[in-house]
């Protein structure tokens, strides 16, 4: 048995997406910039994909460029807004402590270049306060960038509220919606979003392709110079097959969004309730309701996440953790620390993320396996021994 419960890391490509892509490898393989028939066929497929995706997001096809994925989109959005701001003497950027590294590391770099960065705290439930965003806005604020949904603890941020505030103050608002697109309803116009990043492999599309929506009137700066693809905003021969696959995956995902969400929430809530009931000294990270339908995040006191992951892996369960050992640094996940968890608890985190391909039987299996593995590790943990002793 192999249970894939790491859909926040990446997802399986859907059958429909694979089928949609196949002709573009061996038959319609023309370069979308070529003026001959083969090229124009590829170009047409790409423009259809652009129309489909922009229709889903609620924007104009012209407002959408294709990139290599979430990281590139985040980089380009933030750097572009920073450059636009600098031209007007605005060098202040507002973001949060729970952003993905694709945002945080860009902000680190801008900080070294003289930008002033405000990283907002989040509530213990992992939610940014829209009022905090408003309070942080200054005369020289060039950009607010707040993620739509957190990749570790799944929390959904008050994007529409933040969008309205940014509009009121005339500040550009970017959201990293990599975990949200295809999973929760999004409309960039209704939510007053100026820029939005997404990535196909998080919604059953292929890896290495994504996009950036940019509201008309905001000038993007290219990160990659070269040919005139994407109206000169992103050079490089377009990956037509991947673009077509991304559009097919997103269409399918959005058509089934309500049905999938309902199924996932049921599985998610049952898993959270059952594990919390079976394992003492365990907690769920992030708001119980305002979270992605497929995200479950636990912390178990007295054990460490990597060993938990590997033992679950040996039982056929693929999950992830924000422990220091899995992050490759000395500190556990910045997200778990930002919601106020002490290091020793944050080390014992487990993230299980589901898609509609998962089944209730798999949830049963996980509900049975997790408490066993936790006790096995606690039985050999001197930290658990101490916790038990202190309890007495």
């Amino acid at each position: 048995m192999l249970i894939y419960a790491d859909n926040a890391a990446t997802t399986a490509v859907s059958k429909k997406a694979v089928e949609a892509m196949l002709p573009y490898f061996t038959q319609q393989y023309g370069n979308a910039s070529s003026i001959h028939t083969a090229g124009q066929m590829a170009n047409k497929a790409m423009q259809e994909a652009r129309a489909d995706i922009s229709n889903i997001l609620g924007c104009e096809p012209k407002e959408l460029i294709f990139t290599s994925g979430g990281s590139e989109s985040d980089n380009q959005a933030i750097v572009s807004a920073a450059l636009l701001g600098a031209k007007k003497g605005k060098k202040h950027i507002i973001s949060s402590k729970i952003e993905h590294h694709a945002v945080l590391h860009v902000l680190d770099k801008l900080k070294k270049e003289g930008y002033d960065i405000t990283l907002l705290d989040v509530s213990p439930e992992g939610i940014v306060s829209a009022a905090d965003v408003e309070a942080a806005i200054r005369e020289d604020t060039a950009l607010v960038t707040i993620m739509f949904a957190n990749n570790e603890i799944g929390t959904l941020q008050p994007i529409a509220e933040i969008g309205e505030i940014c509009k009121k103050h005339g500040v550009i608002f970017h959201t990293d919606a990599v975990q949200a697109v295809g999973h929760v309803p999004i409309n960039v116009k209704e939510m007053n979003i100026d820029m939005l990043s997404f990535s196909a492999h998080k919604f059953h599309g292929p890896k290495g392709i994504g996009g950036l929506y940019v509201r008309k009137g905001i000038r993007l700066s290219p990160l990659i110079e070269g040919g005139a693809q994407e109206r000169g905003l992103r050079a490089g021969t377009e990956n037509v097959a991947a673009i077509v696959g991304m559009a097919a995956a997103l269409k399918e995902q959005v058509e089934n969004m309500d049905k999938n969400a309902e199924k996932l929430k049921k599985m998610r809530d049952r898993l959270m309730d059952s594990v919390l009931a079976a394992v003492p000294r365990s907690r769920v990270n992030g708001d119980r309701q305002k979270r992605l339908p497929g995200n479950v995040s636990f912390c178990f006191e007295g054990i460490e996440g990597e060993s938990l992951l590997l033992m679950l892996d040996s039982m056929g369960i693929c999950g992830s953790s924000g422990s220091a050992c899995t992050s490759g640094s000395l500190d556990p996940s910045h997200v778990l620390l930002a919601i106020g968890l002490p290091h020793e608890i944050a080390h014992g985190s487990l993230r299980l993320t589901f898609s509609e391909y998962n089944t209730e039987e798999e949830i049963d299996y996980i509900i049975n396996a997790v408490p066993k593995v936790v006790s096995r590790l606690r039985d050999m943990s001197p930290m658990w021994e101490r916790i038990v002793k202190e309890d007495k």
Partner: protein
Amino acid sequence: MLYSEKVMDHFMNPRNVGKIDDADGVGEVGNAKCGDIMKIYLKVEDDIITDVKFNTFGCASAIATSSIATEMIKGKPISEALKLTNKAVVEALDGLPPVKIHCSVLAEEAVKAAVADYYKKQGKELDEEFFSCSGCCSACEHGEEHTH
């Protein structure tokens, strides 16, 4: 695979897990903040380690290094246990990823801490050169040397 088969074997089937209630020496190193704590219990007769058990909180390599370290010193004279190096632990496990080398340092230190405790209980002098720092993260001033 991130780890060698040896590491996975010692992680999935750790040897000498447990506690010794009437231990002659107990050593604990590491700290919860860094995400690893190792505790080693020794039973000693005529300067020979007749039994050894461990408890570890930490990642797979922390558990595996504790396990193999206990195997390497069981039945050995104390003097030999004191010569256990982190390098020997790494070699016995067919290598560790660079970011996990500190776990082998912890294992070496846990053994030394247990021996130090044994010496103390016996009223014996400690040979200072064997007993350096314990702990291996940013919380410890020796952190950088140990994490490579």
